[in-house]
């Protein structure tokens, strides 16, 4: 395979890890916080996606390193990679996926707490690897932890809220209103944390416009803008209308959640590109 093919596979695997991890962790978080029903089959599918793509990211690192498919199973090379942050991230994902798998079993209310602990391990895997970890700064890593936890929480609410909007608008209004109260605090924190990280990574605001990495970061910010537009529409228009028993608002809420979901996928795709194809 040539470099472009390797990198395309690496991008797809990273995209799978991001989609699977953020969605799965987000569902565990909103299940504990809001007590909403979360489809077991969906969590099972996301668990499989995260497991397979996590292993693929690790093996592809070896494949790219040796420029050979045989390299993907070379025990010596895989051992070298295990010693790096890529190995640490895989270890955290294995622990997190194990705990989340336990949370899928019918073992009572404790399973939600176990699911959240597993989610924290899963999300921490992004803090120990990637460009931010290379800065060796505790406070920037802390910002990243906040940033990804809030992003996962946001992604996690979308599917359950969409299901509620179509089936139980009254409960959708209750959950949506409660999420809105969280979002008023959490979204600005997420944005400030993201901005501060970008500044630390790039070294200057000008670099956002003059480097390839900076331009990609700006595209990602545009995707976040679409997400925020959808969230604002929900909070200011559709949730208040549902609270006043306006049944037509449920369709509007469902549609803006679909738009937010599309923006979320777009953002994760670009995040995968940013972390697969190079650094600042």
């Amino acid at each position: 395979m040539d470099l472009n093919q390797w990198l395309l596979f690496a991008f797809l695997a990273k995209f799978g890890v991001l989609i699977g991890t953020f969605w799965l962790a987000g569902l565990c978080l909103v299940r504990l916080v809001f007590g909403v029903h979360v489809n077991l089959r969906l969590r099972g599918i996301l668990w499989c996606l995260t497991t397979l793509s996590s292993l693929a990211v690790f093996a592809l690192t070896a494949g790219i390193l040796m420029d050979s498919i045989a390299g993907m199973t070379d025990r010596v090379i895989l051992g070298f990679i295990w010693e790096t942050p890529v190995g640490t991230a895989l270890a955290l994902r294995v622990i997190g996926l194990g705990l989340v798998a336990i949370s899928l079993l019918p073992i009572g209310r404790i399973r939600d707490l176990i699911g959240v602990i597993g989610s924290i391990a899963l999300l921490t895997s992004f803090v120990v690897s990637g460009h931010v970890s290379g800065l060796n700064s505790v406070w920037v890593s802390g910002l990243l932890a906040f940033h990804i936890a809030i992003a996962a929480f946001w992604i996690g609410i979308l599917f359950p809220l969409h299901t509620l909007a179509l089936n139980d608008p009254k409960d959708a209004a209750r959950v949506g209103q409660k999420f809105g109260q969280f979002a008023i605090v959490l979204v600005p924190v997420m944005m400030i944390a993201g901005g501060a990280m970008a500044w630390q990574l790039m070294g200057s605001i000008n670099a956002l416009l003059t480097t390839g990495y900076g331009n990609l970061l700006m595209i990602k910010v545009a995707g976040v803008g679409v997400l925020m537009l959808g969230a604002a529409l929900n909070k200011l228009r559709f949730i208040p209308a549902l609270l006043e028993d306006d049944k037509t608002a449920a369709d509007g809420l469902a549609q803006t959640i679909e738009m937010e979901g599309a923006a979320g996928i777009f953002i994760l795709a670009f995040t995968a590109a940013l972390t697969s194809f190079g650094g600042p």
Partner: protein
Amino acid sequence: MKHLLIILLLLPSLAFSHSKVSATVPVNGAILDIAPDDFTFNFDKTIRLVSVVVNGESATLPDQDAFAKTIIMTAPALDKGRHTVEWRGLSSDGHPVSGTFTFTVQ
């Protein structure tokens, strides 16, 4: 989706930017009177060398107990002429890195 893939395929020029070889001995483009006994790789971050290919043939790697910024390896016997050294390594941040240098023995 098609446009996204095109953008993504154009991005590999950004790749492999995580660790750079800051110097090699012999330096790239060197003209030497005698063949070198060793190759020295100096990197800006610690790495492990996983492959060195000299003129298309795999060279024996040195023992590496840990990631290091400077790696010295015994060079294979080389005749007069132009020689190409292609290397691959794993940066301690987990990123694959690679490079090539050439030199001439006259």
